[in-house]
């Protein structure tokens, strides 16, 4: 471009610069680079903006939906469901008694046929008892169906409204008869009262027929079951009262929508009715998987960094480093595939071996669970933690090492008491970045975490990791393909995306802050 004349001392290049529209080339170039930088920044801003726009508009829409849900009377069904759920808890107690009975017989070496014969009275009792709930369930379904039509109509109207805003509202202004539906539902309340009365008397009858159990150790459970069942019957009028007091006209606030999203314990996509979008099961799932991964990756990553940086020979370190860095290059879907094809089965089979019985949660029931995913994610977090910790360790000034050695400390003492504590902020930020990497990982959790949308049952203690979970990244990947644009489900997934975005941003920011905060010797 400049040619060989550039060497001439008298060449005043500025004058010979070609000008385009009165702008010289230097400015043009600067404008080009600047333009690119602006485009890049704009694009990245756009991502953030778009994400937040779609994500945050979830809340008004969800609020509207919740309001429709309430006004159309669908919520009554969910109130009845509470009574049903309480009944199911009783059922659970009953199942628990039978479970212990079966376990007892199994340990006595009885065959399945014998067990079936011996527990037949209990089995029959179970059916008798569970059948008590059928009228209740039917009532719940009836109420729901009464309201469902109105709810669907209202949803469709809202949908229509959203799709073509160009049309005037009166074009589809067939008025939705909320009041009529509510009146219809309210007319069924005496049914519930009658039903509850019936349930009470029936249950008392059935309770008396409890089959005699030989095993005395089960008696306390039976007693507790009886007591709870009687307490349940005593509480029955309460459900009817709640229903009667319920105000379907009450409007739903934005705050309520926000609350149900952030602290909601259920994420239920019901294509046939009302969907619930609660973040908590996904968030806890993500955190559980991440926790497992970090607990596993931390000793390995940091340990390997200390070993490589402080103890390994030069050649050995030169071999270890690229090997561990290479893990970054393995695509996550390959690791996920390995998990589903080999590792999941391996872990379960290993858990089935008798001499490992003492471990909590063993043998594992589910092949795909948080632990499987966590192990694989740990492997993916190791290179991040390793590389950055190693960097942090090698940044510790030589003077520190030399002074320590000069004072008579052994190499090992120097490493553990001087170098590692000095580098600790770097290591912490490495671990944080590792967390950021793990929490955003999609394919491994989608394939290996088991996809159960439920808050893990932490009461199981150390066996908790072996439960299947679903994660925020997983839900987006699994459900995004199906959603209608602009629909509430679509927005809900964007909202999860926003949470994920903010979470990783926070983690990265914290990592950088910590990293900058305590730099030594530079």
């Amino acid at each position, binding site marked *: 471009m400049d040619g060989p004349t550039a060497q001439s001392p008298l060449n005043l290049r500025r004058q010979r610069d070609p000008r385009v529209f009165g702008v010289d080339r230097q400015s043009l170039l600067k404008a080009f680079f600047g333009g690119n*930088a602006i485009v890049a920044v704009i694009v990245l801003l756009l991502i953030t903006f778009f994400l937040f726009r779609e994500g945050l508009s979830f809340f008004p829409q969800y609020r509207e939906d919740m309001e429709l849900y309430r006004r159309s009377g669908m919520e009554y069904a969910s109130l009845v469901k509470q009574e049903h759920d309480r009944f199911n808890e009783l059922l659970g107690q009953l199942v628990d008694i039978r479970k212990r009975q079966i376990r007892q017989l199994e340990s006595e070496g009885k065959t399945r046929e014998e067990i079936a014969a011996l527990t037949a009275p209990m089995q029959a009792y179970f059916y008798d008892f569970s059948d008590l709930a059928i009228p209740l369930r039917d009532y719940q379904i009836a109420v729901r169906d009464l309201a469902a039509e109105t709810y669907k109509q209202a949803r469709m109207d809202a949908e229509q409204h959203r799709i073509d805003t160009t049309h005037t509202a009166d074009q589809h202004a067939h008025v939705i008869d909320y009041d009529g539906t509510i009146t219809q539902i309210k007319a069924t309340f005496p049914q519930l009262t009658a039903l509850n009365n019936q349930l009470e008397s029936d249950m008392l009858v059935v309770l008396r027929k409890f089959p005699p159990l030989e095993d005395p150790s089960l008696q306390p459970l039976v007693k507790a079951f009886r007591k709870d069942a009687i307490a349940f019957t005593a509480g029955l009028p309460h459900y009817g009262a709640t229903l009667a007091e319920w105000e379907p006209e009450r409007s739903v606030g934005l705050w309520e929508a926000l609350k149900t999203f952030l602290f909601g314990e259920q994420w239920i996509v019901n294509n046939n009715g009302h969907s619930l979008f609660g973040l908590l099961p996904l968030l806890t799932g993500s955190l559980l998987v991440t926790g497992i991964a970090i607990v596993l990756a931390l000793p390995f990553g940091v340990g390997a960094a200390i070993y490589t940086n402080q103890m390994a020979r030069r050649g050995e370190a030169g071999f270890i480093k690229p090997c561990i860095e290479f893990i970054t290059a393995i695509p996550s879907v390959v690791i996920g595939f390995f998990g589903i094809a080999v590792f999941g089965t391996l872990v379960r089979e290993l858990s089935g071996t008798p001499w490992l019985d003492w471990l909590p949660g063993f043998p594992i029931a589910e092949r795909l669970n948080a632990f499987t995913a966590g192990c694989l994610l740990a492997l993916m977090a190791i290179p991040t933690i390793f590389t950055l910790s190693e960097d942090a360790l090698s940044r510790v000034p030589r003077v520190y090492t030399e002074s320590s050695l000069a004072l008579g400390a052994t190499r090992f003492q120097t490493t553990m008491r001087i170098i590692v504590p000095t580098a600790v902020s770097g290591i912490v930020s490495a671990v944080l970045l590792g967390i950021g990497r793990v929490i955003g990982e999609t394919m491994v959790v989608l394939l290996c975490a088991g996809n159960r949308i439920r808050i893990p049952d932490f009461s199981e203690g150390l066996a908790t990791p072996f439960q299947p979970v679903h994660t925020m990244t997983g839900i987006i990947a699994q459900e995004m393909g199906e959603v209608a644009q602009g629909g509430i489900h679509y927005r809900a997934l964007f909202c999860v995306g926003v949470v994920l975005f903010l979470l990783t941003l926070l983690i990265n920011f914290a990592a950088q802050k910590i990293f900058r905060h305590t730099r030594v010797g530079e």
Partner: protein
Amino acid sequence: MNPPSNSPEKNPFLPRPSATRRAEKLVRWGLRGLTYFILVCICAILLTIAVKGARAVFVPHWPFINVEFLTQAPETLHVFEVNGQTYELSDSQFRATYEEQGLKSPPDRTYAHAGGGIFPAIIGTLLLVAGAMLIAMLLGVASAIFLSEYGKRGPLLRLIRLSILNLAGVPSIVYGLFGFGLFVIFLDWNISLLAGWFTLAFMVLPVIISASEEALRSVPTGFREASLALGSTRWTMIRTSVLPYALPGILTSSILGIARVAGETAPIMFTAAYLLRDQLPWEGLDHWYDFFFQGVMALPYHLYVVSAKLPQNAYTERMQYGTAFVFLAIVAVMALTSIILRIKIRSRHNW
């Protein structure tokens, strides 16, 4: 590290064995064990995939490479028994034999996607990587040059740099979500190559900008000052005294970016990838611009499909491990290039 194995009596300067020493030794061995355990894990994964995948990709006779697997599209696999022998044939082969031998009954078992090869997926992945990297490099390197050479140091630049650095850590699925919302739905590009390119490009953009900028800034200021002092303009200075020295660093980062682009599944799941597509991207286009608006098959998505939607058995294994192996090989070659390049450059430029 270990002293020569003289006994302590002969050499009085050797440390005497003590409880502390033994503990130290134990910890040292523990750490070594941890380190090598990681390596063993990687080896186990890689070997499993390589050994089982090699069976799909290589054959024991000439030409030693399974040409069908690398050049055909996925097909249904037919498994059937004739005279007590089990045969596995992909659909096109099966049809040929079918007609030849006049077989009548359809096969016992079929496994969709388990036969044939993965050629369209390989092509799709290469296309996605090429386009995305073109966009990302163009934008990324130019932005980095501006930020490092032209931009005025100040709070604004720091803010931009910080936000770019932070965006580099945002999960890929979030970029996928964004790409799906903006390109596929809002701009109505449908599931297409173009949507995939931009999604992937934006995903690696922060990484490329920050890595390139780092490479540019690691060129000593003296180089710039010397050039400017000799009377060169800013652009000449950048062109002759900065870029040549920063280029290796930029290239390394970009190759690493390629590995990331090639390896990610989440962003292309809803923006570019098809489950099955008969035609290769350049076939059957009505207009030249249709090229950009077609979805493609891609290796990572294909691997997801065959691992999540196919059963694990002896017949499907070939496709599953074969895809994983080829995919891993492609990405690994890229990553290894970048790692080796980085090590070489690190030792070369030491100013």
